[in-house]
Structure formats: structure tokens, C-alpha cells
């Protein structure tokens, strides 16, 4: 029999909420948490609105890790702590070689890279920290979590843009099926620095609106691109049997995952790749489209990509399935965006409540968008969608465990 992989701990670090309780309060209320960027002076930048995390690194991260990590990794370390506490798991594991870490990031440690380059050119090579050798690496978060928490089992790093947050959960499930006993999986991003944002401006996918209330309006006729955000979400994944033995309550079952690559220069406007990822995920979960009780949409607010996503949802599920995108309230945090969506879906299944899209006055289509207020619903199965720039598509089916 195939081993069922379950999520026993959720650790979100998001604008508006550090930890599952705060995060859920923010998203279920449909609050808009977008605001003018304060991490740097955005005056001369086309993008001035973002979703920033209120985060006291000194309080949450041990000092020895602070000096050698980027803000992204600090988010990841804090999120891993939160997820493990939520799962009632204290590292190290009994067998450290059966405990692993798989994380994803799109931007990596761009802020520390920017600082290091600044020091290099301003002061010379002697002033660049030796820790710069890995602080800006995409692998840093996996490395630091595995070192700090003595996780010597299967470790890895994915770079698949926004799709990564879902892909890591699929990898974690695979590791559990191959014999790992506990996996930390998730995403961490801190892209709110000029060096990370500058290369994105020419693609014109980021919202250049200066009004936080209207800057990020996915599925709206007024959609003008997405608002960037920072944050992380980590999960504890283990087998249902191990969770039961530890007395840790499973919050969701990782039921099915599908990933495809459309090989395009942007977000696949055809939607074909996303549709195939959905079909794969649903088939892998052993369910039918009509079993899906809620869809957490990718919601780029790029008109062609929104249209493609709506077409996929409509063609597979019709217009009756509730569709939401809580990220419209706090921004699109690259790989962490889909990880935070997965966290939102897990909490949604757990509470029987769909968190809303904060505002959507004029939707582009007649889907059943959940807007403005949370909706109570009998939720058994959630589908989370994510697309990466360049054509990565990922779909994840999560199920409420049978208690």
C-alpha cells in the first residue's frame, strides 16, 4: 500500500501574519495589507507598492545564523520553527538521517548579494563577508535549516519560480515514500530590494500603481500586474502512521500533484500546461474534477495569464467551484506565493472556511469568486494552482484527513 503523506505543521511568515494563527486571521478577514515599500526608498522605481513582512529577526533567529544569512533564509528558518512547533516536533529527529529538508526560492538571497556587491565596489574585496559565499545562494535555506536542526536525510533545492512552493511538497511526499520519517518543505523569498526588482521591470508584469487599494486586482478588468511580496511558508510532512505514533494531528493529506513545463517566455497564455498539471494532480489524487471543493488560484493579475487560468478552471470544473486568491491581499511572493497558498488551503480545510479575495468589483468571467468576506463551506478537497515565469505549471490536491 502507498504511504500517505500528511502535513502536520504549517509555518507561514507573511505580510500581516507570522505564524498560522496570525496569518489565518489576516487572510480570512480579507484584509488588504499592501503598502508603499519601506525596505528601501522606491521613489525612482516604477514599482512602489509591495507586501512587506513585519519581522523581528533579532527575536526569532539565533544570532550566529543572523550574521550569515539573507533575509529570505531568516524567513525560512523562522517558518521552519513555526511549522515544527505546530507539528509538536522538536529537532533533532531520533534518526537525523531520516529527516530531510526541501526548499525553493526564485529570487534567492538577492538582498545580501546586493549588499555584498555594494561593499565590494565601495570598499574592496577585503570587506566582503566570507559568508557571502553562500548567503545569497538559492540553496542557503535548505542548508541552514538542515544544519541548525540536524537534518541529515534527503535534502534538496528547487528553482521553478512560483510553482516551486507546490513542487517541494510533492518532493517531500516522495522522500517520505522512499523511507524518510520527517521532511521540512517549503519556500522562502525576500525580493524587496532594488537588485531583485530591477531585472523584472522590463517585462512589465509588476503593478506600477501607487494606490495599495487597486494595485493588485487579479481576475478584474482593472488588473494591471501583480504586487511583489516577501515571505515564507514551511511545512512538516510525514507519513500518516508516524504522525499517529507521535500523536500529531494531520492537518491535510498531500493527495496529488502534477507539474508541467510549457516552455514559453512568460506565463503560458494558452493555459494548456496548467490544464494538464491539473488533470495529472486530480488523477494522482484518485478523484474527479467535481470532487474539488475550492480552487486557490495563481492569480497573476496579468490579463492574458488571468484569462488563461479562468479558461482552465472553467473547462475542468465549470463555474460552480469556489475560486479564491487570498494573495490579492498581501502580494505575490514568488515561490513563497504558492507555498503560502498551500498553507492557506491547509488552514481552509481545517477551518471549513474559504478566505476571500479582498476586492473584485468587475470580474472578467462568471466564475464563483469568493470576494470580500470569508465563506463557510463543507471542504474536503482543495486544489492549489501555481505558474512560474517561463512556463512552469504546478497543481496540488490537498485533502482534509478523515478523523
Amino acid at each position, binding site marked *: 500500500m502507498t504511504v500517505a503523506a500528511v502535513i502536520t505543521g504549517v509555518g507561514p511568515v507573511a505580510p500581516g501574519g507570522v505564524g498560522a494563527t496570525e496569518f489565518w486571521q489576516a487572510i480570512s478577514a480579507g484584509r488588504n495589507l499592501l503598502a508603499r515599500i519601506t525596505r528601501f526608498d522606491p521613489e525612482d522605481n516604477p514599482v512602489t507598492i509591495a507586501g512587506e513582512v513585519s519581522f523581528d529577526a533579532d527575536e526569532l533567529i539565533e544570532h550566529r545564523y543572523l550574521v550569515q544569512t539573507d533575509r529570505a533564509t531568516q524567513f525560512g528558518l523562522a517558518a521552519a520553527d513555526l511549522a515544527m512547533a505546530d507539528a509538536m516536533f522538536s529537532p533533532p529527529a531520533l534518526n537525523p538521517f531520516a529527516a530531510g529538508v526541501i526548499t525553493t526560492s526564485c529570487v534567492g538571497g538577492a538582498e545580501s548579494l546586493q549588499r555584498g556587491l555594494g561593499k565590494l565596489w565601495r570598499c574592496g574585496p577585503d570587506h566582503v563577508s*566570507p559568508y557571502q559565499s553562500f548567503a545569497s545562494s538559492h540553496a542557503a535555506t535548505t542548508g541552514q535549516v538542515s544544519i541548525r536542526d540536524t537534518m541529515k536525510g534527503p535534502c534538496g533545492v528547487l528553482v521553478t519560480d512560483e510553482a516551486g512552493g507546490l513542487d517541494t511538497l510533492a518532493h517531500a511526499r516522495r522522500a517520505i515514500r522512499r523511507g524518510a520519517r520527517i521532511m521540512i518543505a517549503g519556500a522562502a523569498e525576500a525580493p524587496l530590494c532594488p537588485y531583485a526588482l530591477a531585472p523584472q521591470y522590463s517585462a512589465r508584469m509588476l503593478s506600477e500603481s501607487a494606490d495599495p487599494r487597486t494595485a493588485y486586482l487579479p481576475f478584474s478588468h482593472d488588473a494591471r500586474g501583480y504586487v511583489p511580496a516577501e515571505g515564507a511558508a514551511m511545512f512538516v510532512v510525514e507519513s500518516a502512521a508516524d504522525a499517529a505514533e507521535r500523536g500529531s494531528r494531520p492537518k491535510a493529506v498531500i493527495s496529488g500533484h502534477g507539474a508541467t513545463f510549457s516552455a514559453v517566455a512568460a506565463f503560458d497564455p494558452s493555459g494548456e500546461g496548467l490544464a494538464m498539471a491539473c488533470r495529472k494532480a486530480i488523477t494522482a489524487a484518485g478523484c474527479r474534477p467535481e470532487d474539488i471543493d475550492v480552487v486557490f488560484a495563481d492569480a497573476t493579475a496579468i490579463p492574458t495569464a488571468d484569462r488563461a487560468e479562468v479558461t482552465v478552471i472553467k473547462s475542468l470544473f465549470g463555474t460552480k467551484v469556489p475560486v479564491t486568491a487570498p494573495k490579492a491581499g498581501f502580494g505575490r511572493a514568488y515561490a513563497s506565493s504558492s507555498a503560502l497558498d498551500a498553507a492557506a488551503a491547509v488552514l481552509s480545510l481545517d477551518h471549513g472556511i474559504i478566505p476571500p479575495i479582498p476586492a473584485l468589483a468587475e470580474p472578467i468571467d462568471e466564475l464563483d469568486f469568493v470576494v470580500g468576506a470569508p465563506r463557510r463551506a463543507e471542504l474536503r478537497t482543495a486544489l492549489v494552482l501555481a505558474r512560474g515565469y517561463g512556463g512552469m505549471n504546478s497543481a496540488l490536491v490537498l485533502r482534509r484527513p478523515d478523523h
Partner: protein
Amino acid sequence: MSSISEQTYQELASVILQCGGITVSIHRLSHRGTTFADIGVDSLGMLAVVRELEHRRRVDLGATAAQDCRTPHQLMSRLCEACDGEV
């Protein structure tokens, strides 16, 4: 070689905190048996500590100081030599 003053260990402690994020007492630092590994300073942290001392004192501790000096006492002795005993 002159003896190493408490003030010098105090400075080393502040460099270790700045470069490695590790708080360590002067008492522990000045104990001859204490190693950097005991305190938790890793190999990259050693590179940063050595370089910061070189910047502050405007001396060259040698290319292999971070590898050679396993203990604070050894590093302080090397600093003492590099500064002609004036630390």
C-alpha cells in the same frame, strides 16, 4: 612575547560577536584550553574574525592564520607577534 591583556580578549569577543553572531565571555575566551570550535565559530567565521582583526589593527596575520589558530590564545599570540608585542 608579552602577556595578552584582558582588553585584547575583550576586543576579540566583540569581533566574534560582530562576525560570528556569538556571545562569549572573556573568562572562557582567555582559557588556554578553549578552542574556536568549542565556542561555535566555524571555518568561514574564522576567516571573518581574522580579517576584522587585521582591519582594526592594520596588521597581516598571515594567509593561514584562520586555519593555524585553533584557539583564541593562539590567535592572540599571533596578533601579539604581528604587532611587535604591542597589543
